[in-house]
């Protein structure tokens, strides 16, 4: 556990050693604000909740999370530090977990910094703060899902641009897997069970429940399993392609 903590600290500090952290947080907050107040019609709706705010999270994450995850492993490959890291006495799980948790904690920090929106809605009205907290947890879980996908894909390549593009495409697939855009590709030939299975992977569906303030055990398990599966795949990719 100490080793995971050491890797976590190093990774998290590295965000703040470069402008990456500040650029990311500023862009994240500016976009969140713009989307919520202009596109989401926060004031016009006249309701004391954060629905317009949370509705945009999946779409913001779609681009911002891969921007964060693309460097996780691709950069280690590019700079050669992966050779240093993976010849230290650590297991692939420790390496993957340490880096992943750092990226997740960083997203959590960015998300926490959106607190003025919460203050605003509490100032203007009397919202259901329990539901808002639930939605925040759901948003963090979804960001974790995107990050796990991005981290795994980043381990395939030394090129961050490739890692970014592939991650966006795969995340987009997961986001919309409950919608005709994705399902139509399968419904023509695949058995119904598979189509239903794919439909059930939709981030939007699972997030929609949580963002309404309903914590369904199944949604939490979904994100938990998805994160676990992609991180497991990440360790496999890492061992398989370690030296390439």
């Amino acid at each position, binding site marked *: 556990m100490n080793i995971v903590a*050491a890797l976590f600290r190093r990774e998290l500090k590295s965000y703040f050693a470069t402008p990456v952290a500040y650029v990311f947080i500023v862009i994240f907050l500016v976009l969140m604000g713009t989307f919520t107040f202009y596109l989401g019609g926060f004031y016009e709706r006249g309701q004391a909740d954060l629905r317009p705010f949370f509705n945009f999270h999946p779409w913001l994450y779609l681009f911002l999370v891969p921007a964060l995850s693309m460097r996780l492993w691709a950069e280690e490959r590019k700079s050669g530090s992966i050779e240093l890291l*993976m010849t230290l006495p650590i297991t692939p799980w420790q390496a993957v977990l340490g880096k992943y948790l750092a990226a997740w904690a960083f997203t959590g920090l960015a998300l926490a910094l959106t607190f003025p929106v919460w203050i605003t809605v509490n100032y203007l009205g009397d919202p259901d703060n329990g539901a808002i907290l639930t939605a925040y947890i759901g948003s963090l879980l979804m960001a974790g899902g995107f990050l796990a996908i991005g981290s795994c894909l980043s381990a395939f390549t030394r090129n961050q641009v490739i890692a970014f593009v592939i991650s966006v495409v795969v995340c987009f697939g997961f986001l919309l897997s409950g919608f005709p855009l994705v399902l139509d590709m399968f419904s023509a030939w695949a058995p119904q069970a598979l189509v239903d299975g794919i439909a059930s992977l939709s981030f939007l569906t699972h997030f929609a429940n949580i963002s309404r303030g309903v914590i369904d055990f199944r949604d939490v398990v979904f994100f938990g399993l998805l994160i676990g599966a992609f991180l497991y795949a990440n360790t496999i990719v890492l061992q398989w392609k370690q030296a390439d």
Partner: protein
Amino acid sequence: MTKTTLIKNAAAPAPGRRTEQIQMIEIDGLTKRYGRHTVVDGLSFSCGAGEVLGFLGPNGAGKSTTMKMLTGFVAPTAGSASVCGHDVQSDSLEARRRIGYLPEGAPSYAEMTPAAFLEFIADVRELGGALRKRRLDEVVERLHLGPVLQQSIDTLSKGFKRRVGLAQAILHDPEVLILDEPTDGLDPNQKHEVRELIRSMAEDKLIVISTHILEEVEAVCSRAIIIANGRILADDTPEHLAARSRYHNAVRVTLGEGADLDAARAAIGQLGSVSGTEADRKLRSITALAADGGQGAAAWRDVSDLAAAEGWAVAGLQLEAGRLDEVFRQITEGAAT
């Protein structure tokens, strides 16, 4: 003359005193193929504490790949390797705990400072308490990192980057130190320092260095393995390797101003103990190659007697041990054809 030691499959015990030592690295039939291309081809050898093993070979000979397999970074296609009795694949963590490794090019985290980087390595190596502080202070002092501790690594010169990599490798005082081209890109003073460092640590460790700088082998190594195309071509002490050179026991006479170089060369060439001569006009020297491998230093005696008898103005007289670069070329080029 020593015969070329060609080691094929068995982990043959190395000659002489080494057999009594505990073997810290044992490699048996280690092979790496990328597709149809064989990079390392059935390498077998073992070595123990107190040795400084120089891994020599042309670029692309498989030196780095062998080191990557020893440190568990690259999985071998066939064969096995163990470090202090721990197999690098099945017992990888234990093996890696005993290794300090400087990868080729000394990669590190560019945005970190050497201080933070070494703290990180200490964390991962689980060094704690007083030992941690002592080791950190020691490596900083040994590698003279004091002035740059708080500067980010990407702003450091190549020499400092390399030293940060070395500091990282020796931080946990490992039993086995594997250094891939430790002096590559350093200036002569820095090279000298790194060699001093290697020598000073050699006593109770096994140090494996790869290099293509031959003077380095002569300066620090107690044993040299020459590989080309992934195979071991020679495995011997640098002195024995140099003795294979045609310059072994050759005598070099440097003549003073006014002496007749050509006449002297002709006279030396007549000697029975001399098999041939080479002249260097710029240095005003004549090298007399010894016949019969120079047994009993007959050439030395004859040439110095001749010089005294002829009354040459001799500015210098040297007995050569042999030229490693020539042996290296001979061995590796012979293998290529």
